[in-house]
């Protein structure tokens, strides 16, 4: 009788779970029974380079950065979709063709808008 071919994946996943969890559990038991906890303000500090952190980590980013997001979508993400579109262009069904056109149209709209906003001019 041959075992289920997926049995090996189950065994593999089991070992992959036990291998890291066993030392972690042993370390936890060790901490629980031997090592007295010694927390402290500096030990629990978030920043760990020996220098005290200044200010709050929750800084606000200005909303003007959305322009970079739009430019990134147009020139980077769109290019990724354009290549498979161009490769499979000749035998695309009409529905897919229209879908990709809508996608392109949305991004071209963004391009026009960014252009009108002056984003594509070099900073002087």
């Amino acid at each position: 009788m041959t075992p289920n071919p997926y049995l090996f994946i189950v065994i593999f996943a089991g070992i992959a779970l036990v291998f890291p969890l066993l030392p972690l559990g042993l370390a936890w038991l060790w901490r629980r029974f031997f090592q007295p906890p010694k927390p402290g303000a500096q030990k629990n500090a978030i920043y760990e380079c020996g220098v005290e952190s200044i200010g709050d980590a929750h800084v606000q980013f200005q909303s003007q950065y959305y322009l970079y997001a739009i430019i990134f979508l147009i020139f980077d993400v769109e290019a990724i979709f354009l290549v498979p579109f161009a490769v499979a262009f000749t035998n695309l069904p009409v529905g897919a063709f229209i879908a990709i056109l809508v996608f392109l149209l949305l991004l071209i709209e963004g391009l026009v808008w960014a252009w009108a906003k002056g984003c594509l001019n070099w900073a002087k």
Partner: protein
Amino acid sequence: MSEQIDENLRSELQRQGVWVTSMQELYNWGRKNSIWPLQFGLACCAIEMIATAASRYDIARFGGEIFRPSPRQADLMIVAGTVTKKMAPQIVRLYNQMPDPKYVISMGACAISGGPFKQGYNVLKGIDRYIPVDVYIPGCPPRPEALLHAFMELQRKIDNQKLSGSEKAEFLKPEQPSEFPVPAFGDHDLNPPANPKVYHPPKLERQS
């Protein structure tokens, strides 16, 4: 060595292929062979430390090659070089951020006492003024063999640490602090100039 088992019985068993050990020995064996140092250097001693970690001297033979860039993952702080007063608060803070058990090797004359720059206005006269030091290495700078020797001394110390009883290791005692006060960089000197709970200067006894 464990108190529970007779040494003769132990060696006899070992001859028969049975290895008897105790929890403490197993734990210390694991600890002493995987001492991860904190990766930082302060001055010329750091060059010797780098040489020790490189292939010619190869600290990996002792399990100490994993220099950690984060104090959270480090067991050993090698204070390699001149500690300036500007740098001392950062060193103490890094020491505080290391988890227990943690050890310190004071490498070279500067880290021990200020060395040739002892009279300098901005040189700390020994890192042991603020944090407890386990092994001191003299030299200016100490050769890599000296650092290896200090490393082996530290291994010996770890191997002899007790895990229970009244003589158990310092880091297992709840009353023993894990953090030490960080000195402030003042106008003329560090404030305070030394931590009296840690620093015990040698007493001079003069015969009159």
